[in-house]
């Protein structure tokens, strides 16, 4: 049952990821990306991390993608027109790069033979939060709050209209 669900979600994620890249209209790309993120959220749940699955839906598919759609509609973005001068060469170079990347990293991954751990695995929000507030991650966690604050101030300063 888990396996069937996993392969369905994986196929959905792959198909919509291809749509993100293959599409010329940015709004279509954004909607396809939301489908990819939702499918990945299901996969996270299947792999035994319910906290990350919900976080993925709320933060990624919710907040971040709504921000993207908001900016797309604010700027009234149209279909992108291809630039014929570099278009064809860049396209083949990019596809060759992608094939080379998959071949190289895939060759490493096939040697890995990853199997689920035999020890009982619990990843409830409580367990993740306990680990997050332990000394080894506490300072990094506090640093992310400074990062968010800096991003907030930076975004407002950048998007402000010049007087």
């Amino acid at each position: 049952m888990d396996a069937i669900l996993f392969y369905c979600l994986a196929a959905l994620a792959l198909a919509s990821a291809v749509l993100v890249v293959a599409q010329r209209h940015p709004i279509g790309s954004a909607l396809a990306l939301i489908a990819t993120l939702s499918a990945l959220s299901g996969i996270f749940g299947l792999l035994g991390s319910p906290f990350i699955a919900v976080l993925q839906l709320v933060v990624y598919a919710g907040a971040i993608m709504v921000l993207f759609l908001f900016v797309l509609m604010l700027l009234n973005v149209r279909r992108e027109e291809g630039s014929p001068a570099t278009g064809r060469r860049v396209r083949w170079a990019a596809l060759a790069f992608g094939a080379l990347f998959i071949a190289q990293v895939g060759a490493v991954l096939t040697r890995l033979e990853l199997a689920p751990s035999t020890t009982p695995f619990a990843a409830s929000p409580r367990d993740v939060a306990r680990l997050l507030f332990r000394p080894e991650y506490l300072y990094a966690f506090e640093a992310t709050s400074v990062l968010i604050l800096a991003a907030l101030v930076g975004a407002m300063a950048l998007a402000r209209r010049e007087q």
Partner: protein
Amino acid sequence: MSEGLLQHALYLSLALFAIGAVGVFLRRNVITVLMCIELMLNAANLAFVAFSRAWGTLAGQVFVFFVLTVAAAEAAVGLAIVIALQRHKDTLDVDAFDSMKG
């Protein structure tokens, strides 16, 4: 959980990362390029979750949490820069932004 599932999750992560990386080169719209970067970050997250399950430790999940935070900050600042660029040059084509001669 069946044996090959985590291995296939890693292959899915690899494929998603490659699609995102190819998209960064293929697409000419700045916002679509940013979305491809988000796709690559998510591929990394999937690998973190798979390794977390394989080794039975939660450290991978904590890293996904940090990646999520950084992605949110990156999207906010990146889109603010996109708005500033649109105001400055009135286009979103990546080829138009070459004033640093990169």
